[in-house]
């Protein structure tokens, strides 16, 4: 299935969420992050953070919480051929528990390329910008979603 181009015309609404201590602890523990700044408030404060520090890939959970806010389910990709190809994070200020963030998703680039065994591969980059209550940029996430080429039809 080629990219559903109507998704490029669409605006995706801003969403908001509060960064919670329990969710930070859960995320840090499953990855085995052993720096106590993620799990122990005193350690976080001693290290100069206002509250528990979110692990570097923590915002991943907020990309597609709600399908209305996220282009991903609207790309028209075949779920069996969809890959998360690349991921990028830019960090602008520390993300700590108690912050109220706003996020917004937007498609920032698309391209197509011929697959090695024929058919077209599609690449879409979705950028998510997260700002705090004062509107200051906290993090930017960019995910590259690939639809691999359809296998050639059997004769």
């Amino acid at each position, binding site marked *: 299935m080629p990219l559903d181009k109507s998704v490029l015309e669409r605006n995706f609404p801003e969403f908001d969420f509060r960064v919670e201590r329990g*969710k930070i602890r859960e995320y840090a523990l499953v990855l085995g992050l052993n720096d106590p700044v993620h799990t122990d408030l005193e350690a976080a404060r001693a290290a100069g953070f206002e509250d528990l520090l979110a692990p570097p890939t923590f915002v991943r959970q907020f990309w*597609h919480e709600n399908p209305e806010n996220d282009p991903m389910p609207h790309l028209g990709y075949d779920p069996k051929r969809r890959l998360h190809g690349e991921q990028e994070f830019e960090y602008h200020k520390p993300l700590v528990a108690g912050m109220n963030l706003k996020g917004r998703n937007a498609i920032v680039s698309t391209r197509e390329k011929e697959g090695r065994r024929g058919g077209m591969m599609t690449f879409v980059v979705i950028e998510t910008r997260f700002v705090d209550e004062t509107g200051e940029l906290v993090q930017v996430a960019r995910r590259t979603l690939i639809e691999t080429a359809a296998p050639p039809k059997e004769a």
Partner: protein
Amino acid sequence: MSYKQGDALPELVKAPVSRMQLVKYAGASGDFNPIHYDDEAARAGGLEGVIAHGMLSMGFLGQFVETTFGAGSYKRLEVRFQGMVKLGEVITCRGVVTDIAQENGREYAACEIEAVDSDGRVVTAGRAQAWLD
């Protein structure tokens, strides 16, 4: 510890990836794609069995940057998911400093980083930048 261009970073060796970890990561991250915990769903998708979330190995690389340069030092992290991680794999994170540079008067290290599986095959690789102050 101070780093210079060409320095290899101390490796981070993770515990073997377990199904319980993938179930927990699904809950922590909100990615409930069943190919990450249900063998039948994985086989229906053409895989031999469940595979780890790509973001799990990126999370390990995030930890690697943190253990090397300190929590909160991260400036940028970017990776390409190159290979699948099966259950029981021991992931090792390694990297090298490619540059020491400045931005707005602050010094940072630029590194090439990669996560490799038990056979030394690169599963996730990319670049990281971390503040040095």
